[in-house]
């Protein structure tokens, strides 16, 4: 097994400095750094193989088309999708969820329920809220407990044959909670609802098997799993994708166009109008390769041990800190508030020490409201982080408390 020190060398950003200190990058929940192999894949494509896809009869274009098809197959494999046609390339999680909530518009009837949880990112909250407003459906938000877990009783009770759609995050970006997605899906499917899972925070940290989960849609962003910006994936069940109307109209999603009538191409093309993010698709393929080579066994072990270490150190050294989100099953992130010190001030002080964390509502205002706080500071770890970086975080937090607490 590669050592973490060796792995860090795969990521050029991890050797940079911030404010005179070696960068301690603990904002992986926002976005992850890129291994050189991903950067190289993009560079190589632009330098040596660049062409558009689908449309060219020449070799370059065919090769680019093939390369994108290969990534589609790789993506299907990565999340255990049964068919490569079910992989739709989108800009990111946000677009994926918007696509589904838009294209399922006609499916949701006035008076039906759309159910989400109280720990959703705005991207999995607002599109459903707006859908409900448009369609006269009921927007139901299942409460979360004091530890930041879903109130499963409330969830089970809320489900009924009146439930049209259930949407929830696989892992909460604000709390770290790993949801029991399989059980939640099973209950929702029993009620006859469609299930969308926001996998933005899960895709880099846990193996995903959409068939084992049993959901209908799964969405994630490449930039959160070591891939490029500008690209993400919507997976959806074939029958549903085929039944849904197209999202955007334009080139490549068309079968034939005339003034009187336009017919659309089959999936996945139907949902991918216009020139796609070609270089980004290729970069995503390299990201999957990187993760696969490392393996989720290693990734999960490493990240879990960082979580345990951080929690121990926080407990031991930082009585001024209250951790928000103490789910039993938790991803490698610590969201917290410090007595009398605003997260924004903490962020600034950590920044001066070269430590990148996030301070704010994490695009999850309803979670902040639930805990009666305006914001938290969040340190989110990846397999490439170290105990030493956690130590630096703890020291800097002590300093912040001495100064402002």
């Amino acid at each position, binding site marked *: 097994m590669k050592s973490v020190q060796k792995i860090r060398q795969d990521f050029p950003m991890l050797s940079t400095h911030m404010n005179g200190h070696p960068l301690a990058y603990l904002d992986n929940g926002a976005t992850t750094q890129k291994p050189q192999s991903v950067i190289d894949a993009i560079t190589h494509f632009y330098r040596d193989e660049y062409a558009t896809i689908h449309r060219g009869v020449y070799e370059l274009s065919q090769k680019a088309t093939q390369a994108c098809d290969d990534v589609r197959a790789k993506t299907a494999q990565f999340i255990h999708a049964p068919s490569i046609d079910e992989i739709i390339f989108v800009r990111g999680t946000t677009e994926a969820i918007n696509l589904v909530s838009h294209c399922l518009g006609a499916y949701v009837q006035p008076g039906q329920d759309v159910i989400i949880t109280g720990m959703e990112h705005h991207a999995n909250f607002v599109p459903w809220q707006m859908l409900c407003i448009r369609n006269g459906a009921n927007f139901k938000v299942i409460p979360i407990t004091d530890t930041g877990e879903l109130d499963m009783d409330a969830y089970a009770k809320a489900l009924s044959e009146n439930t049209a759609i259930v949407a929830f995050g696989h892992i909460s970006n604000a709390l770290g909670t790993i949801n029991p997605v399989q059980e939640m899906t099973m209950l929702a499917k029993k009620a006859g609802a469609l299930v969308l899972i926001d996998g933005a925070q899960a895709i880099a940290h846990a193996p995903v098997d959409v068939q084992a989960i049993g959901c209908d849609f799964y969405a994630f962003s490449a930039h959160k799993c070591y891939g490029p910006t500008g690209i993400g994936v919507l997976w959806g069940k074939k029958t549903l994708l085929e039944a849904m109307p197209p999202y955007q109209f334009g080139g490549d999603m068309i079968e034939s166009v005339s003034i009187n009538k336009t017919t659309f191409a089959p999936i996945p093309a139907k949902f991918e109008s216009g020139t796609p993010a070609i270089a980004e698709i290729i970069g995503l393929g390299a990201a999957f390769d990187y993760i696969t080579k490392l393996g989720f066994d290693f990734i999960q072990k490493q990240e879990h041990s960082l979580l345990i270490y951080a929690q121990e150190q926080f407990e031991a050294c930082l009585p001024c800190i209250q951790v928000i989100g103490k789910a039993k099953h938790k991803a490698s992130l610590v969201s917290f508030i410090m007595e009398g010190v*605003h997260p*924004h001030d903490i962020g600034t*002080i950590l920044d001066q020490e070269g430590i990148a964390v996030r301070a*704010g509502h994490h695009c999850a205002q309803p979670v902040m409201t639930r805990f009666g706080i305006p914001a938290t500071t969040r340190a989110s770890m990846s397999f490439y982080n170290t105990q030493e970086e956690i130590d630096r975080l703890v020291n800097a937090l002590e300093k912040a408390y001495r100064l402002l607490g």
Partner: protein
Amino acid sequence: MNKTDQLYQEVILDHNKNPRNFKELASPTHKAHGINPLCGDDYWISIQVENNTVQDIGFMGSGCAISKSSGSLMTSLIKGKSTQEALDLKNTFLELIMTDCTDECREKAGRLKVLEGVKQFPIRVKCATLVWRALEAALSQKDQAISTEN
């Protein structure tokens, strides 16, 4: 002094811990709401103006040390001033914080100079200016929410 210490000077830490005029007036003549959606700073400014003079002023809400100390300093400084003087001071402060200001401006800013360290933290500038924007809104009778993103 390193950048952090320049930002969090003693005076600021004191105003943060013990903000002056941290209250809501019972029946203000002017009122405005200031929010910074990015970091969640959220304050109400309430003002009692009589004969064009700020008789009393309070600010209430929650936010970071910079926004809170800025509110504390602001309310302390403009109480008793004419509304015109208050708005002038606001302009001076914005110039101090947001531009390569002149020595003359720095002079006029007086005690507000302790906040000048914010300049080195561009993302915190909005924290320092939030309450002043709300003051401006309140005095111009725009009784609406002021967002730093607007």
